[in-house]
C-alpha cells in the first residue's frame, strides 16, 4: 500500500474552505485521506487509490449534542476523524458537489467557530510564551536554562502571533 505524509497541512490551509479544497484536490489525484486523529494537524497520511470525487467538510463543535454524528451520517457523510474540536467529514459524489452548510447563517457560524478556536489557541500560546519570558527575566536559574526559556518564550510568542493572524484570515477571507 502506497502512502504519503503531509506535514502541518491544517496550519498551511487555515481557512476551512481552503483545507477542504486541498483535500478534494488530493482525492482527485488519487491520494485519499481516510483517517485523521489528534496528531493529524502535524502529520496527515494519505493512501494511494483510484482518483475519486470526494467532498470534504471540516466542522468545529466544542460540545456536540448526542445527535451530531447521526445527523451527518444519516445524510450520507462519513466521519474521517477528529482533530481537537474539529471533525472532518467526507462524502463521495457524482455530479453536483454536496454541501453540509447550505445557508449563510450556518456557514458564518462555522467560520466563527474556527476563528474562535484559533483565537483561544493563540491566547494559550501567548500566555505560555509570556510565562517563559517572565521565567527567563526573573527566575533564579542557570544561564543555560535561562537561554532555553528565552528561546521557548520567543517560539511560543511567534506561534501565538501566527495563529492569531490565521484567526483573522479565517474571519476576513470569504468562503469559497
Amino acid at each position, binding site marked *: 500500500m502506497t502512502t504519503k505524509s503531509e506535514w502541518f497541512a491544517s496550519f498551511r490551509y487555515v481557512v476551512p474552505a481552503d483545507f477542504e479544497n486541498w483535500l478534494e484536490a488530493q482525492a482527485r489525484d488519487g491520494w485519499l485521506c481516510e483517517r485523521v486523529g489528534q496528531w493529524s494537524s502535524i502529520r496527515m497520511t494519505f493512501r494511494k487509490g483510484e482518483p475519486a470525487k470526494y467532498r470534504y*467538510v471540516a466542522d468545529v463543535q466544542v460540545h456536540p449534542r448526542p*445527535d451530531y454524528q*447521526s445527523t451527518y451520517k444519516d445524510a450520507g457523510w462519513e466521519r474521517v476523524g477528529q482533530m481537537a474540536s474539529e471533525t472532518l467529514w467526507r462524502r463521495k459524489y457524482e455530479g453536483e458537489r454536496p*454541501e453540509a452548510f447550505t*445557508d449563510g447563517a*450556518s456557514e458564518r457560524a462555522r467560520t466563527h467557530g474556527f476563528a474562535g478556536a484559533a483565537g483561544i489557541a493563540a491566547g494559550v500560546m501567548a500566555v505560555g510564551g509570556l510565562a517563559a519570558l517572565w521565567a527567563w527575566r526573573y527566575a533564579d536559574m542557570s544561564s543555560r536554562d535561562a537561554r532555553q526559556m528565552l528561546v521557548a518564550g520567543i517560539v511560543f510568542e511567534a506561534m501565538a502571533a501566527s495563529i492569531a493572524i490565521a484567526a483573522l484570515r479565517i474571519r476576513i477571507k470569504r468562503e469559497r
Partner: protein
Amino acid sequence: MRDRRYSPMSETMFHILLALRDERHGYGIMQHVADLTEGRVILGAGTVYMSLGKLESDGLVKVTSRDGRRTNYVITSKGTDVLRAEARRIADLYRYAKEIS
C-alpha cells in the same frame, strides 16, 4: 407573537419549524423539506444541526425523545406563534407583490 430574532426568518429556519409540526429528527427534517419543495430546498447536515441547536436554545423547538443516537424534536407553542407570525408576514408580502404583476 413577533420575535425580532426571527422576523424576518431565514428560509432554513422557516422550513425547519414547519417540518417540526410533527416530531422529526435531523435527517427526517432534511427529507421532509426536500419532498415538500420537490428538491428546490436541500438542507445540509451541518446547517440542520446548527439550526436545531439555536432553535432549541431559543425555546422554539424541544427534544421529545432520543432514539439511539438520533434525537427527535418538535415545535413548541412559542415556536408555533413565531412561525404563524412569519407566515402572516410572508402572506402580506405576497399580497403586496401581486400588485406588481
